[in-house]
């Protein structure tokens, strides 16, 4: 039992405990934040050290390969950026600051486990660890909106977990094993490929995971939870939770359900088309910026599912690359919103009017990230879309790619509307909007990443392709 393989998760857990204890004893709260951010270096270093070692532990339940390590590093990076940007926002949590940091770290631990496991029950456990931390975090502000968000997320999340468990049970019942590789062998060998029970199991798994990635029709929780939760938590949810969801979908569907790929690729293609369209069209009507970004993230999940439906290795590496670019872009947008909304105490788009005069750097960063989300060069979002659409065209899903590009145009309506309001509108007041150094650092890192990947995408593309190459090839 090689515990060294679990070192990133163990160290992250230990960090969470240290943060809680520190919060009890330390009077100057900024130390708690600083420790939690600085402490993230430890799991990051462990993850980097694990790169290249292809090992399994706990009887195949835990697996350390490039896919797992990539996502571990991605989650640590997301957590670092979110924590950096929320040290000032955290003052709203009064006495519970330590718990806020600790819960974020624990959620990250759950996600790291989620990407590294090859066994259905471990997936479920890791999913619950992440989920419960996030349910609490969603309700952290203790006002009516936040409590509603937390409760909604909990209830709907519980239902989704139950559905997922039912799907797992069905698959287990059919194949007799919960190990992903063995499930694949059992499916292709045992002649159960056409059985309705397997199809039912696939559908239930799609439903359970679909909740996590906010695919239509499992997306009802997104707008309310995104609007009500504290903005850093929303940022974290929109990026890390989605990345974790897609990571586990890639694992489960490529490794376990690979032989049945004809079935689930069609499901994902149709869901992708519906998700993008619903997300983009409803986003146009929003006037609260967090809600709008919630619907936008639903649409982005739709684009990601195009890569899933393209059951090729280009498809899976496109999904991983898109997740990396999307993480940077969406975080950049949300960090800017954390800074601005915190000071002007409003989440309404109309109150962002003329922000270019009041907070030029923040407004420019927000505009850059929105332009990247639309998919206009030279940004990371554009490169991600090109790659994922080319994966779609390559696997014969031309109809889906046409729907996707039209959706990109529709999305321009609401993204550019915010850009317009920021640049053209009359400022509501002449007060400058300041932001703490830590947040500016996080924002600069995100924007730098967006621009850099827009011009040199192979920086991330190479890593993404290596990560995705771990998954079995389903269609040559």
């Amino acid at each position, binding site marked *: 039992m090689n515990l060294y393989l679990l070192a990133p998760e163990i160290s992250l857990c230990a960090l969470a405990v240290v943060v809680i204890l520190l919060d009890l004893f330390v009077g100057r709260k900024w130390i708690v934040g600083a420790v939690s951010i600085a402490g993230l270096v430890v799991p990051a270093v462990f993850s980097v050290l694990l790169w290249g070692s292809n090992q399994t532990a706990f009887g195949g339940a835990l697996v350390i390969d490039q896919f797992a390590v990539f996502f571990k590093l991605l989650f640590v990076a997301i957590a670092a950026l979110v924590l950096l940007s929320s040290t000032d926002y955290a003052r709203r949590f009064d006495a519970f600051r330590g718990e806020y940091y600790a819960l974020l770290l624990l959620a990250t631990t759950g996600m790291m486990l989620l990407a590294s496991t090859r066994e259905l029950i471990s997936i479920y456990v890791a999913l619950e660890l992440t989920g419960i931390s996030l349910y609490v975090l969603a309700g952290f502000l203790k006002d009516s909106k936040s409590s509603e968000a937390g409760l909604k997320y909990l209830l709907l999340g519980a239902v989704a977990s139950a559905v997922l468990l039912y799907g797992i049970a069905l698959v287990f019942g059919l194949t007799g094993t919960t190990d992903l590789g063995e499930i694949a062998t059992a499916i292709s060998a045992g002649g159960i490929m056409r059985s309705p029970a397997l199809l039912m199991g696939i559908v239930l798994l799609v439903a359970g995971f679909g909740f996590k990635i906010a695919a239509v029709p499992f997306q009802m929780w997104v707008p309310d939870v995104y609007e009500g939760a504290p903005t850093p938590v929303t940022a974290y949810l929109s990026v890390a939770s989605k990345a974790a969801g897609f990571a586990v979908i890639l694992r489960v569907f490529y490794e376990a359900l690979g032989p049945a790929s004809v079935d689930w690729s069609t499901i994902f293609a149709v869901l992708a088309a519906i998700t993008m369209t619903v997300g983009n069209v409803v986003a146009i009507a929003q006037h609260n910026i967090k809600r709008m970004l919630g619907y936008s993230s639903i649409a982005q999940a739709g684009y990601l599912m195009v890569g899933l439906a393209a059951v090729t290795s280009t498809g899976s590496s496109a999904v991983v690359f898109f997740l990396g670019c999307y993480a940077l872009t969406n975080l950049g947008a949300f960090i800017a919103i954390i800074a601005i909304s915190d000071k002007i105490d409003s989440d309404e788009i109309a109150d962002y009017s003329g922000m270019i005069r009041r907070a030029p750097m923040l407004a420019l960063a927000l505009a850059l990230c929105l*332009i990247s989300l639309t998919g*206009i*060069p*030279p940004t990371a979002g*554009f490169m991600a879309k*090109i*790659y994922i*659409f*080319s994966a779609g*065209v*390559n696997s014969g899903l*031309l109809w889906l*790619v*046409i729907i996707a*590009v*039209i959706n*990109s*145009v529709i999305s*321009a*309506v609401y993204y*550019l509307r915010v*850009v*317009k309001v920021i*640049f*053209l509108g009359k400022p509501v007041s002449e007060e400058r909007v300041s932001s703490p150094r830590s947040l500016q650092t996080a924002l600069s890192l995100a924007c730098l990443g967006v621009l850099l990947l827009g011009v040199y*995408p*192979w920086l991330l*593309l*190479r890593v993404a*392709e290596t990560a995705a190459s771990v998954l079995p090839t389903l269609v040559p």
Partner: protein
Amino acid sequence: MSFPYLSTIIFLPVIGAIIIALLPGANPRRMKLTAAVFTAVSFVLSLVVFFTFDRGLAGPQFVERASWIPSINVQYLMGVDGLSLPLMVLTTLLGLVAVFVSWNINLRVKEYFAWLLLLETGILGVFCSLDLILFFIFWEVELIPMYMLISIWGSGRKEYSALKFVLYTLVGSAMMLTGILLLYFQAGTFDMVVLAGMGLDSVLTSLMASAIFFLIFIGYAVKLPVFPFHTWLPDAHTDAPTAVSVILAGVLLKMGGYGMIRVLLGIFPGTARDYAPIIVALAVIGVLYGAAATLRQTDLKRLIAYSSVSHMGFVLLGIFALSQVSVTGAVLQMVSHGLITGLLFAMVGLVYEKTHERSIPKLGGLARQMPVIVVVFSVAGFAALGLPSTSGFAAEFLVFLGSFSSTMVAGIQVYTILAILGVVLGAGYILWMLKRVFYGPPKEQYDGVPDADRREKIYTFALVALIMLIGIYPAVLTDIIKTGVAPLLAALGL
């Protein structure tokens, strides 16, 4: 490796934009001078390229190649040939003119010049790229600067026009991207030169070739614009600030025509021949409809905008008549129209600045009060209607001669004659406009309006000189254009 002229020309404006954005203080004069310097250097370098271009060689010159995204075979590939070189020089020239036209801007000067220079980089990149993804990236880069420039510094329904422009162009680009990706997965490369030599028409099924052709055609059709995708143009041109209208009409529209020749004629000549009758018909409708609509306009700027629809119809006719002479004429018309309409919009801007009036019924008899502007405006107007000794005549003559004698499209003679009617209508609206606005009895409310000052005289006279030069000696351009167009049409057996 020799000095990378093309990359320098393309990226100098954006470096200038970044410098302007980072300039401390709010001294407008410093920003304008910086913008002028960067665009002037780009222009001079493009002239160097123009004069050192070897007219005997076919194929792209000043090529710069670097591997960019190996996993999908995208290269950083730049090069100019006889087709793109005149357009590149036109872009740098109009970029410099636009900076001079914008000299009197005083609202948010820093952002204005930053967006303007970024826009110039985008357009230059389109003309110089020889890799389809690079081409597409630069094609999209110009969207946001245009949106910002029109919606902040424009007039009238500026936000509506800006959004309309962006959405129309995005839809076109979306279709174009799908076509480009399809093409890549059939052919295996994004390199435009290699693709042109592959003879894809015979390799692909006719369904696939037609699908790719039409997807990409829609992208260019929105840009050129081709009737019925033209409705964004009058709004965007009219509501944009003067310098932006100059660039929009002068160069942005040409991206569509350039793309059609380079990609559609170069890579799919057979498919182009199959669909040429429909497209030529659309071209003629565009010419006549555009001219008819222009006759009805009462806003001076909108009149010039609609006339662009008509003139771009000539370009489309020349391209899809598929003969050497007509395509050469189309390219010459693109350059000539860029100069003429750029000048016309600049003049409209001057008239508006001096008299604060754009409505034709309210203007009148200005020849007494502003003689210099009137003379230049009249010359520009005559060039627009195709008076011999102006570049407008040279270009239109080549287009009509080429399309009338084309052997590729059945019944093209009828279309050509109908298009020539458009010239008559053109004479109608130009002369009528000149009479109503400038000639006739002077109105007292315009007594004492200033005429063009020295800076304005410089750039307007320069443009007039160029229009005359090309009109009297078109070989200065047609020699170069021919070397670029001939290889592309060779596949048609011409």
